[in-house]
């Protein structure tokens, strides 16, 4: 039977409270859901970024499972080494348990600087799950743009100013790029739909070989939004089809959620400080282009999933 909330609620929580992430941050939910999706022991790797620095301030740790942080760009390579050790020691009869391996990385550590390491680990076929928590910028270093930052967003390296409207480029569609790796399981999920997220994580753990999950993870600080808005903004991201929920299982594309009432990008963006400048007179054209691009991407996804 597929995971449900009732079952999830019974699972031990593998990260403790009292970590130092901001109130209302998205990624603690991501950790809880992902690690709750398997009952096997898990070993976790994590890239440098908000997740790592807020959960492991020595001599404290929020992690109740074995955890390794190596550097910013090598979460995937590091866990690929851990998994290789496991394969070797298991073959030699020195380890007998069934263990699962997860590598976490932020969008910076995944889309940008860790992209090669991720691609290599996925291509080599390690039995591991890579989870990107995408908060759309380098939050740990103070909200700089990444290739996951949405077009028009204000960041500290793409500040909205007198002649610039924020980031000029559209975000990179990393999930599709990962699907092109031909690995057994790739999915996009969000903290707005916890059951969907947990089920995708469960599938990712259960496939034989690498799996990639891209999870939408709100950042109240970087997005300039209220601390209690994570769920609503994530829901808006999927309802506007900016962040569609879908999965690619053995090459077969499936849309997991089709909003009954698709909301406009204006409706979604209006709620976030990072897009506020787009609503000044003169930026209407940019907003129209953003809407058109999201619509086109959504149509493309629906076609792929036909």
């Amino acid at each position: 039977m597929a995971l449900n909330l009732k079952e999830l609620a019974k699972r031990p929580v593998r990260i403790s409270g009292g970590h130092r992430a901001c109130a209302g941050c998205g990624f603690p939910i991501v950790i809880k859901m992902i690690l709750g999706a398997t009952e096997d022991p898990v070993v976790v790797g994590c890239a440098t970024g908000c997740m790592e620095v807020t959960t492991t301030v020595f001599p404290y740790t929020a992690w109740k499972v074995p955890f390794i942080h190596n550097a910013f760009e090598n979460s995937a390579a590091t866990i690929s080494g851990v998994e290789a050790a496991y394969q070797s020691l298991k073959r030699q009869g020195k380890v007998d348990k069934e263990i699962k391996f997860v590598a976490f990385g932020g969008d910076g550590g995944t889309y940008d600087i860790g992209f090669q390491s991720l691609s290599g680990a996925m291509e080599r076929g390690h039995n591991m799950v890579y989870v990107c928590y995408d908060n759309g910028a380098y939050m740990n270093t103070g909200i700089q743009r990444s290739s996951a930052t949405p077009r028009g967003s204000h960041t500290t390296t793409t500040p909205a100013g007198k002649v610039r409207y924020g980031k000029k480029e559209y975000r990179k569609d990393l999930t599709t790029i990962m699907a092109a790796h031909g690995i057994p399981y790739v999915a996009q999920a969000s903290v707005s739909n916890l059951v969907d997220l947990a089920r995708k994580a469960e599938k990712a753990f259960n496939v034989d070989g690498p799996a990639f999950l891209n999870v939408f993870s709100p950042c109240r600080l970087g997005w300039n939004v209220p601390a209690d808005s994570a769920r609503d903004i994530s829901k808006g991201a999927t309802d506007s089809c900016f962040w569609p929920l879908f999965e690619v299982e053995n090459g077969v594309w499936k849309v997991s959620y089709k909003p009954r009432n698709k909301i406009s990008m204006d409706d979604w963006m209006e709620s976030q400080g990072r897009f506020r400048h787009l609503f000044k007179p003169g930026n209407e054209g940019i907003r129209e282009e953003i809407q058109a691009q999201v619509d086109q991407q959504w149509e493309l996804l629906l076609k792929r999933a036909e």
Partner: protein
Amino acid sequence: MSVVKQDPRNSTALTGNEAVAQAMRQIEPDVVAAYPITPQTEIVQIFSTYVSDGLVNTEYVPVESEHSAMSATVGSAASGARSMTATSANGLALMWEILYIASGTRLPIVMPVVNRALSGPINIHCDHSDAMGARDSGWIQLFSENAQEAYDNMFQAVRIAEHPDVRLPAMVCLDGFIISHGMENVFTLEDNAIREFIGDYMIERSLLDVEQPMTLGPLDLQDFYFEHKRAEAEAMVRSKKVIQSIAEEYEKLSGRSYGLFEEYKLDDAEIAIVVLGSTAGTARYTIDQLRAQGIKVGMLKLRVFRPFPFEELKQALAHVNVIGVMDRADSFSSIGGPLFSELRAVMYDSETRPLITNYIYGLGGRDINPRLIEQMVRELADVQEAGRLNQYVNYLGVRE
């Protein structure tokens, strides 16, 4: 352990790369993660054939870069697996960030480094700029004169790195092409003898110990980082004794003796040259020639560059009048190469204060030959005669 005599029947003609690959087969690490680069490539190729032919039980991870090679090796070493990689030059440079993480996390990784010039301009031949660039990374660094020493250093490196008093990663350096591709007779040891010598990989805690979860690589701030670095520095200090005791143990096994450095005709020398790596062979030959002409020259060949055995070096060189330090790397500090700077600092508080000067040579594989070494020794003899230095830094064998 019984002493194995150097029976010619135990010797095989091997290149340095073959000898190192052979040593890796005998060590049979649990995990090897590596990436090809000239002149190291053969090591990973040969090792791959061992994997393909089932001669080793190693999990081989053909990573997509040296950065990932070192990253994966850190992950596997932390997971209770004896882990190795190998590289040269740009590959080592690409690993730089993770070298510090490997040592700072106190992971006993062993890595052959086939020394090659760093780009740019790109050049695939021997010099020591790669290893010297990593000299402050907290790795033990052993240098080899020939394939035999590279082979022998490999096993000792495993024991040194994994020793509970040390727990630091170790590089086994061998000169690109000169050693890596030169063929020579190498005395090899029985697989069983090696197994027994290196024993099982043991670390206190493994990431795979899911019952006792640990957090590795945490954020370490102003209140603890310094203590951790201090402990790392202390481990490097302790490693000197360990290196010596493991060399003694290895001598019993192999009949070949190793120390922190080797002295050649140094006892009564007035002029000393200090070298690293394969140049020692050429220097030995030249010293014999010059000795026949009555020039009292000797050599100190440094094997252990990290830790830097300063007390022993100071003693060994106290009696000479002039020291010529040969650096196969420049530091661009404008005051000479790394070996020179460090040795000069060591000799500062020697009571005898020999004159000490630097010869930078052989960059990018530029040939070093007896004629050049003779030229250098004659210049050092002039310095002795004059009783003072003309300059700190000399470039040997370059067109000015």
